[in-house]
């Protein structure tokens, strides 16, 4: 069962929205609207998410875990470093001074949070990614791209839908 890719470009978000709605409402065998469709846009655009339906974002959990780990490891690491090895006696201060360690804990809390958030971003958005089989540089200019993946049988139907909504351009993967 080989699947083929199709990429259609649209000039504005309303057209793209209409296409997505139609794809969603039409039953096409060999094409699953949730798995086989990717919408590409040149700008961050909440409306796209609205018409695609809410999808969960997990990056913030990475943030939480990273920050907690950074902060607690930071505090434990610093305190145990101070209390072991060569103790540095400072006149009038305890060996493990809490106010000073709080400052460093704070910094490490943020450090862990930021690093793990970025890691989470890469994981959640699947970057670095292989380039998709069909790509058009116009997507990074001003066009909205809809990339679909479908079996041979469904390709004609999809093309028709794309054409009906006045796609600027329809690209097709060479048949295998």
């Amino acid at each position, binding site marked *: 069962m080989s699947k083929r890719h199709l990429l259609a470009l649209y000039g504005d978000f309303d057209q793209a929205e209409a296409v997505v709605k139609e794809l969603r409402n039409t039953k096409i065998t060999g094409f699953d609207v949730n798995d086989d469709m990717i919408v590409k846009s040149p700008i961050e655009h909440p409306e796209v998410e609205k018409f695609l339906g809410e999808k969960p974002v997990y990056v913030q959990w990475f943030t939480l875990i990273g920050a907690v780990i950074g902060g607690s490891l930071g505090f434990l690491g610093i305190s145990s470093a*101070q*209390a072991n090895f060569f*103790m540095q006696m*400072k*006149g009038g*201060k305890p*060996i493990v001074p809490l106010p000073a360690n709080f400052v460093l804990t704070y910094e490490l809390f943020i450090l862990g949070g930021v690093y793990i958030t970025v890691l989470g971003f890469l994981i959640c958005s699947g970057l670095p990614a292989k380039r998709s089989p069909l790509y058009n540089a116009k997507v990074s200019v001003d066009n909205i791209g809809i990339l679909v993946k479908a079996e041979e049988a469904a390709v004609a139907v999809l093309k028709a839908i794309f054409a009906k909504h006045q796609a600027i351009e329809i690209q097709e993967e060479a048949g295998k």
Partner: protein
Amino acid sequence: MSVTNLLDNWAEVRHFHPIDDKPHDPYKWAMSIDLDACIGCNACAVACYAENNLPVVGREKFQHGQVMHWMRIERYWNEDDREFPDQGAEFLPMMCQQCEAAPCETVCPVGATNHTQDGLNSQIYNRCIGSRYCSANCPYKVRYFNWYDYPTTDNVWPAEMNYQLNPDVTVRGKGVMEKCTFCVQRLRAAEVTAKGEGRIVREGEVQTACQQSCPTNAISFGNLVDPESRVYKQWKAQQVDLAKDEQEKDKQEGGSDLRGYRILEDLRTYPSVMYLERVRESAV
């Protein structure tokens, strides 16, 4: 490591060293300087140069303020109603006060300056990276930085003078901070000898270079926790308590007639050097 052990250690490291802690045992090196006896002859400073391998930086660097005198004699002019202001000269020998809660220790980024068990403020030359934060935070400004590599600088120690260097003390290269150590090399030698003989260092057994060379015996130095020592007796007689930022005697109305005081005591540095105020009218 058991949990009890861990908690014990935790309690140990949460002590406020050394003020809150067990007092120094068996040593707490301290000094007292009688300004009434000081005649400003600079013998102590010279002795310090000789003992601690201090570089003589020369006229030009002296003018730039890059001089290395660990022990300096400060002059103040008391000019009121005098025919000649010089008559009102007052001298103050100033060196590292070996504070119990030293401001320099906490700020050193690499822990090159620490508090020792015998109550000194130590300086580890090998560890120092030369951030100079300690000097910036020292209220007495008694820390000196090696602005140049003096051992290789011309005329600091000409070739034949190398034999004059004290072999017990390192020669410091450029970029490290240094300061008065209370002649730590002498203290360590005495402590080790005494330990070998199963006793503690006796009064008079160890002297600092400045103390040794003072013609008027203005400087006394010793173990502050040893009731037999002259320093202990002086501090006691002057009612100066090491662990106080304001002495009881000064809280009395009208102050106290006793001469003992410590410099900038109210900054809570708890210095280990007590000065005895000058009462004599004229310096000469």
